[in-house]
């Protein structure tokens, strides 16, 4: 039981320094680990409970979008570029990491409004709600990864040893997705426009990012790709898996730093503004 006195006062967080705010956030997250896990369970089990296929829906959705691309690629309408590995592996590996980002950001942005009444009636850590929403994204990512492993077995391919570093790339991807998710969840609570526009935006972003095709060498997309941190993450995953080295290390490291910076900044943003959620939602 914590005995310390709490004070509610307008703008009182603004008076503290950024470092002490970050410490406050770290303590809050640590203290609420179990709550976060319970909220994840609430979210996760409830999603799949009243359906016959249950958890298998997590497989089916990425399969359908992958199937579309395989079809387009096979019929020559859509060219993925000069790819040396079997296209299904190439595409599924890319799409699974992309989905990690997209489900993180979308479920993060929805985390607050989905909870509805609870938020205006009970005082509990709002950050836990957003972090709990990551759980579902990670689970469906892991399921897709299992499919990737099956594909490797099917094509009798062996990834390079550097593949062991690939799990580390999950960290900046989640940091970026959760970072945007945090700040969008607050804006979404105030004005619902975000929830409408975000899925469209994410789909658009996916076509903009070389997830299912190779990095373009010409045209405007080349420039866009150069400044797209997501491109560096996804190409790093493939580089390490198929080639065993990073082809663009500088871009990758800058993107990692950028992601962590975004995450810390949005975490502060969330902390400073979360007191306004209940009254505006």
């Amino acid at each position: 039981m914590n005995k310390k006195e709490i004070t509610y006062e307008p703008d009182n967080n603004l008076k503290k320094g950024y470092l002490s705010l970050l410490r406050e956030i770290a303590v809050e997250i640590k203290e609420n680990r179990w709550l976060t896990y319970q909220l994840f369970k609430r979210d996760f089990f409830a999603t799949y409970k009243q359906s016959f296929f249950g958890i298998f829906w997590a497989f089916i959705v990425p399969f359908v979008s992958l199937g579309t691309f395989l079809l387009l690629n096979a019929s020559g309408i859509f060219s993925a570029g000069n790819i040396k590995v079997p296209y299904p592996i190439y595409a599924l590996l890319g799409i699974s990491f992309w989905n990690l980002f997209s489900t993180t950001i979308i479920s993060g942005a929805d985390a607050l409004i989905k909870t509805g009444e609870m938020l205006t009636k009970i005082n509990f850590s709002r950050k836990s709600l957003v972090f709990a929403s990551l759980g579902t994204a990670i689970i469906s990512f892991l399921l897709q990864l299992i499919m990737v492993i099956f594909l490797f077995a099917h094509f009798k391919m062996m990834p390079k040893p550097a593949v062991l570093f690939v799990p580390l790339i999950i960290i900046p991807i989640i940091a970026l997705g959760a970072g945007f998710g945090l700040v969008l969840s607050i804006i979404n609570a105030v004005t619902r426009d975000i929830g409408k526009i975000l899925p469209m935006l994410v789909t658009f972003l996916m076509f903009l990012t070389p997830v299912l095709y190779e990095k373009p060498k010409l045209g405007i997309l080349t420039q866009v790709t150069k400044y797209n941190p997501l491109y560096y993450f996804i190409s790093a995953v493939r580089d390490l898996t198929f080639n065993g080295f990073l082809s663009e290390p500088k871009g990758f490291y800058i993107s990692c730093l950028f992601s962590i910076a975004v995450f810390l900044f949005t975490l502060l943003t969330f902390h400073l503004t979360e007191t306004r959620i209940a009254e505006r939602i």
Partner: protein
Amino acid sequence: MGDVVIRAENVSKKYCKTLRHSMMYGVADIGRNLLGKSSRPGKLRKNEFWAVDNVSFEVKRGETLGLIGPNGSGKTTLLKMLNGIFWPDKGKIMVNGRVGALIAVGAGFHPLLTGRENIYINGAILGMKKREIDKKFDSIVEFADIGDFLESPVKHYSSGMFVRLGFAVAVHCEPEILLVDEVLAVGDVNFQHKCLRRMADMMESCAVIMVSHNAQVIRFICDNALFLNKGQMKFLGPAAEGIDEYIDFMVQKALPEHDKMKLNASYSPKVKIEEVRFCDAGGNQIRDVNSGEALNIDCRVKVTEPIPRAILGVAFYLDAHERSFICYSSQIGRYFDLSAGTHIFRTRIPELKLKKGVYHLAFIVAEKNELASHTWDYPAYILVKNPKPQYGFYSMDFSFELGKPAVS
């Protein structure tokens, strides 16, 4: 005993009337905070108003404070600020100890999850740790009394079971400060008693702040009362005095409404009530009466078709739904042959032993039996006052004496 666990200093909260402005202001405030600037919370913008305005009080451990006031007076908003759900726009709230809220029991339940799953999740949301819930689990289940339903999804629960489970989890938090918002109005009588007993146990070690429209509950349970109207403090002090202030205030508010109501509020084509007068024993017209004194009611009715053997009646309602007293002429064997034309029907009550409050009267002209009424619900109000302290629901004559036990 004695240490202050919750203190509010000049607390204010503003609300916005329109959704569009609320969205705009929300974005603007967040923007200013991000830039490290104050959102200037102390100023009202267009379409904003103070929902809670400059409220100060403190509650010590072991004390109970009742929040009273008409609808929309800011009671719930104040309670949510004490809980940290809303933050004040002006002033300061200091909370010292674990806060438990019986504001919306079961609000965190997910309908698809089982009772067992929901106990853990809701417990976590309310601030309990796993070990704590493990330890209290059996006690929670026993208190909720949901039997075999523990493993069923909550959506298959009856509404009573749902609330019982919610309440059971909430009271097991062992808070040092308990916030209660009208939750006792749910569940059956046995469960309500169980909850009250449990709350009484908790009150010994807790500071309690409760919202209730039920004046009796506040009078019995609370030490002090805070009476809010339109967000402002009208009274802060001993509960019994606060309740009196509140009832007087509500009466003053209700009486002018009586005058505005239309006189032809009749549901019958045969009878129309034209005027109602309240008089004392001396025949002087009155608007209020002391409990225990005489009340004469003159009701002028216009009868369009003759009604043979009519039964006359008067009903007194408290709070619009509590039917405190009804009398029919048939009870004393009186029936009236009403001819077409205007009549005055007089009701005489020599001793009006009603508890204090504002009563809404309904008049009955019935044919054949008491239920076949012709006129019902003519809007008239009478205020029953009582200068002496009065407790409970009824006002009766009583005496006390001290005797000696018989020696055997």
